[in-house]
C-alpha cells in the first residue's frame, strides 16, 4: 500500500511504536538508541525510515506517532520530507505527527531557514520541535518529550487523546 494510515492495523497490547522519517541515518540511529534507553511503562518500539512510502512487503506494526526529522543544514532533507508527506493519510495530522528540526543551533550552517519549517508545520497543523542532535543532553530531553507525546498518541494516558 502506498499511503500510511493511522488505523489500518490493530494496535498491539501495551506497545507503542514511533516512526522516524528522515535522511540522516547515523543521527537517527543515535536518536533511536537514546530513545530505547528511556524507561517507559509500555513497551516502546522505534522504527526508522529514510522516506515514505514504506515497502509493503515488510510486516510492521501500527504506527502511533510519526516524526519527520529535517536537518536544517541540508536542503535535500527538506525536499525528501516534503515528498514523503504526500504518502501520509490526512488523519495522521490530527495529532499523531510532528516535525523535528535538527541543527538550529548553528545558524551559520543552516541552509534552510527556521521559518520555512515553521510555515510547513503550520500548514500541516502539527507541532514542530527544535533540537540539536549532536549534543547528548539535548538528545535526552528531546527523547523524553517524544516519549510523552507517544504515550498520548498510543492512547496510554487516560482521558487524553491525540
Amino acid at each position: 500500500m502506498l499511503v500510511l494510515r493511522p488505523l489500518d492495523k490493530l494496535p498491539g497490547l501495551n506497545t507503542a511504536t514511533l516512526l522516524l522519517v528522515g535522511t540522516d541515518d547515523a543521527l537517527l540511529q543515535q536518536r533511536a538508541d537514546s530513545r530505547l534507553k528511556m524507561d517507559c511503562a509500555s513497551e516502546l518500539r522505534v522504527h526508522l525510515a529514510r522516506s515514505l512510502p514504506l515497502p509493503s512487503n515488510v510486516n510492521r506494526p501500527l504506527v502511533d506517532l510519526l516524526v519527520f526529522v529535517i536537518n536544517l543544514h541540508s536542503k535535500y532533507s527538506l525536499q525528501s520530507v516534503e515528498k514523503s508527506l504526500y504518502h501520509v493519510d490526512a488523519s495522521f495530522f490530527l495529532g499523531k505527527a510532528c516535525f523535528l528540526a535538527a541543527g538550529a543551533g548553528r545558524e551559520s550552517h543552516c541552509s534552510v531557514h527556521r521559518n520555512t519549517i515553521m510555515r510547513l508545520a503550520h500548514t500541516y497543523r502539527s507541532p514542530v520541535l527544535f533540537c540539536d542532535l549532536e549534543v547528548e543532553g539535548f538528545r535526552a530531553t528531546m527523547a523524553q518529550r517524544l516519549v510523552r507525546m507517544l504515550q498520548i498518541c498510543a492512547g496510554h494516558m487516560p482521558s487524553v487523546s491525540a
Partner: protein
Amino acid sequence: MHAVMMPQKTGKNYQAQNRPSQGSSSYQTNLSACEVKQKPSDSKENNPMQDDEHADDQDGDVLQIAMEYFEKDPIRSLRSKDKILEKHLITVENVAWKNGLAPETIDILLNVALSGRFGNAVNTRILKCLIPATLISEDSVVKAVSWLCVGKCSGSTKVLFYRWLIAMFDFIDHKEQINLLYGFFFASLQDDVLCPYVCHLLYLLTKKENVKPFRVRKLLDLQAKMGMQPHLQALLSVYKFFVPTLISVSLPVRKKIYFKNSENLWKTALLAVRQRNQGLCPEPRKLMLGPANIRPLKRKWNSHSIIPVLNSSSHTTECGKKEMNLSEYLSSSGSLPLEQLQRFPQLLENIHCLELPSQMGSVLNNSLLLHYINCIRDESVLLRLYHWLSQTLQEECVWYKVNNYENGKEFASFLDTIIRAESFLHEGFYSCEAFLYKSLPLWDGFCCRSQVLQLVSWIPFNNFSEMKPLLFDHLAHLFFTSTIYFKCSIIESLKELLQNWLLWLSKDIHVKPVTDSPLDTSLCESMNSVFKLVHYVGWLSTIGMRLESNSTFLMHFILDFFETACDIYLIYNLPLVVLFPRAIFYSALFTLDASILNQLCYIMHRYHKNLTAAKKNELIQKAKSKLSFSSKTYKEFNCCLTTMVGCLWTSKPFKKGIRFSPETLEKLGVEEHKRSLNLVYHSSLLGYAVSFLLQETPEEKTINLSSIQVLYVQQ
C-alpha cells in the same frame, strides 16, 4: 585621505617619524609622544616571562631573539627571510596565546605589522596574535594609527587593525590621546570598506565634546549617500543623546544591535586577559604544568567570568586634557574613581561626578552602581547596557549556539547575576526579553532551567496578544510534553510574572491620575492583557491536570496562582476579577487532599470579598465606566459557590434531583444519596472524621459515620 610617502629609513630607525597626512590636520595631536626612544634591550620582554618555570625561560629567550629580528630593518632577499620569519612568527604566536604580550612587544609588533614591511599574510598573522598580557599602552596605538596615514599597509590590514582596536579597546590604559585623534578617525569614514568599523570605534570613543555640528552634517550626508545603515544610525544616536538639539532626524529608539561583532577572532583570548587582570595571575602559570596543549585555550580558563571587571574610565588619572568643560573646572573634586565606591553615603555625596565605566556590563555586579543607573536620566547609559547585554546573551547562549555547550555552568551563573540585578531594580531588561523571544523556541527545557524560568517571570508588561506567538505558545508546547516538575515550575514562574505585572500596573495607576476617556482605553487594554494571561494559565492548568491525572502536587501550584489572581481587585486596586476555570474548581472540590480543599475554600472566600466590593463600588459611583464587570462573572461564581456549599454543608448538590433509578443506586451501594455528600463524608476529610470518632468512643468496634451530625448554626 591621502598618504604621504615616507622614504624608507635604513638601520634601526624605522621608528615613527611620522607627519600627519593632509586629510587629518585638523587636530593637534602631540606626536612627539610618538617618537619612540631607542628600545631598551629586550631584556624587558623577559621580565614578565621570567619565572621559575623552565619552559617560560626558554620561551622568553626565543621571544627575545624574535623581537630582535623584528626590530631590525632587514634588507635581505625575500627567500632567506621566509624560514627565519616563519620561526619567529610561530614563537611570537605561541607566547601570545599562552601568556599575552607585554606592552612594549605589542608596540614593536604593531609597528611591524602596519609599516608594510612584510606581506599581507604576515601582517594578518601578527595582528591576529596581538593579545595583551595586561594592558596596551596608548602610545603604541597612536603610533600605529599614524602608520595608517603612510598608506603602506593594505586595505584588509587596515580593517583588521580597526577590528583589533575595537576588540582590545578596554585594555588600552589611557584614552585621551586616542580621543584627540577623533578627527582622523572621523575622516576615515569616507572609505566605504572601513566605514562600519570606524563607526564602531567612534561609538566607543565619543564624548560630549566630540559632537560638533560639522560632524553631524557629515554623517547625515553619508547617510543620504549610503542609505540608512545601522552603524551610521548608531553613531547618530550617540550624538543625539549627548547633544539632542543638533539632530532633528528621527532615529529608531529600540534598536539594540548595531554592529557586527568584531571580537570573534580574539574572544577566548580576551576572556583570558580579563581574568588575568582580575588578579588571578598565579593560576594560569600552574595550569601550564600539564602537557602542552596545542589548541584548546578554552579548557584552561575554568572560571572565567563573562562579566567584565569594573574599572573607572581614564578621566581621573589624566591630567593634561586639552579641552575641559567649564563645569569640570568648577567642580572641585573631579570624578571619583569607581573602584573606591564602597558605601551608599559615598554614592550620594559623589552622585554628580560619577563617570560610568566604559564596560557597561561591569555594572551588573555592583549594587551601588545599579542604584545610580536607576535614577539617572541619561538614556545612553541604558542603551549601552542593553546593547552589551543583548550581544553577550546571544554570544554565550548555550543552546542557541551549540559550540558553547561546555560553558553551561558559566552561562547559568551569568544568568543568575542578571536575575539578581533585575530583582534588585525590580524591573526587567528589554534585552533579556528579546533574548527569550529568540531563544525559547530552541530551548530544550532542561538547560539552565530555573534561570530561564526566572527570566520569564521578569518580562516587562506588554500586550499579551503580541507576546503570545513569540513566547506563550512555545511555553505551552514545552508544558504539554514535560514532566510534572517542569509543569509546576512553569506555573510558578507565570505566577511571579503575574505578580510583577500587577505591581507595575498598580504603581502606574497611582502615578497617572485617573481621568476619563484617553486613559480609560489604555487601562482597558492593560486589564485585557492581564485577563488573557490568567485565562491562558487556566487553559494550561486544565490540560495539565488531565495529563497528570489530577495530581495534587500540580494542583497546589495551580491554586497558588489563583490565590494571586483572585485578589486583583482588593490588593492591587485594579478593576479586574477573573475566575478560575470550572475544571480546576471541580478537581479541587473532589480532591483527596485536605490542604487543597482548604486552599480552595480560601480562594472562594477571597473571590466573594472581591466581587462584593466591586459591586458595592459600582453601585456607589453611579457613573458606569467601561470597566464594569459583566454579570456573567457573577453568575459563574454563584454557580460554583452553590455547588460547593451544597456538596460540603447542605447536602443538596443536585438541584433537580438525580436521574439514576433507585435500583441502580442500590447496586452502587449509595441508597441514601441525599445525605451522603457532606463535609463528613468528603474524600479528603474522611480520615479526620474517623479519627474523631475513635477519639470519642474508642471502645466501639464499628464506626458509624452518620453519628456525626452536622449542626446548622443560624446566623
